[in-house]
């Protein structure tokens, strides 16, 4: 039986990771753990980009900036490029902020307090799910 090429295996593995990250984001949302939802939304976004890079049989860069630029290079002329970039620009700072109790926006950014609005977390998750689906469609 022919073995699935390694890059294809890697793309599928990253896709599974992206969906697991979304599932974790959803579970945490249901439990009111909104900062965790934000954290996993970012990682779902990053994982699906990695899947798309592997799908083109390319090495996945380790550094964030290089990874997202490699995705852009491999998929030029995306009809949802602006939406992609806006979500990246929004999720990227939130990734770190969901982990540390810094101070920001005039309050201690205890992440459990900073991202305590269900509507905000729901909205972020919905937009991330849409983006993951759009990028996954590129792999078909």
């Amino acid at each position, binding site marked *: 039986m022919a073995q699935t090429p390694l890059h294809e295996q890697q793309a599928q593995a990253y896709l599974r990771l992206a969906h697991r990250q979304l599932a974790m984001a959803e579970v945490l949302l249901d439990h009111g753990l909104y900062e965790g939802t934000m954290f996993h939304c970012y990682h779902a976004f990053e994982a699906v980009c990695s899947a798309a890079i592997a799908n083109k049989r390319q090495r996945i860069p380790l550094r964030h900036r290089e990874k*997202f630029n490699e995705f*852009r290079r491999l998929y030029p002329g995306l009809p949802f490029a602006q939406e992609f970039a806006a979500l990246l620009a929004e999720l990227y*700072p939130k990734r770190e902020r969901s982990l540390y109790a810094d*101070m920001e926006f*005039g309050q201690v950014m205890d992440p459990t307090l900073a991202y305590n*609005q269900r509507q905000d977390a729901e909205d972020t998750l919905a937009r991330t799910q849409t983006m993951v689906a759009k990028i996954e469609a590129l792999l078909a």
Partner: protein
Amino acid sequence: MGQRIARTWERFKQGLGDGDFEAAIEAIEAAVMALKEHYGSELLSVMLFGSLARGNKGYDDIDLLIVIANERGPAGELTRNLAQSVFGPLFLDTGQLFSFLLYSETQLKALKGFLPLFDEIREDRIVLHGSDPFA
């Protein structure tokens, strides 16, 4: 702890000396322009800090501290608006990733002395626009 004097953007750029930072420099200057357009006279200060401000060629993202005159709504909404109107388009144009902090002037004053990250900003800061809130 002694207060370091903020470095100016022009002097910092001269000090970089080679082409490794060209893309970052262009992106930072474009960011300042876009923020001026977005906030108008409400924009009081923009500062660069973090690994790039330390001249680290291996930087991954560009850290900015943005100070505006007044609070403009909930944090989530402010972040989303800035991502959509400024930092998303900048990523498409320049390929650079930004990690930004946004405060009103009042918020920043209230927080000085409390936030460990501010110690890092105070040490490395480069004023890109407006006044230096740490002076």
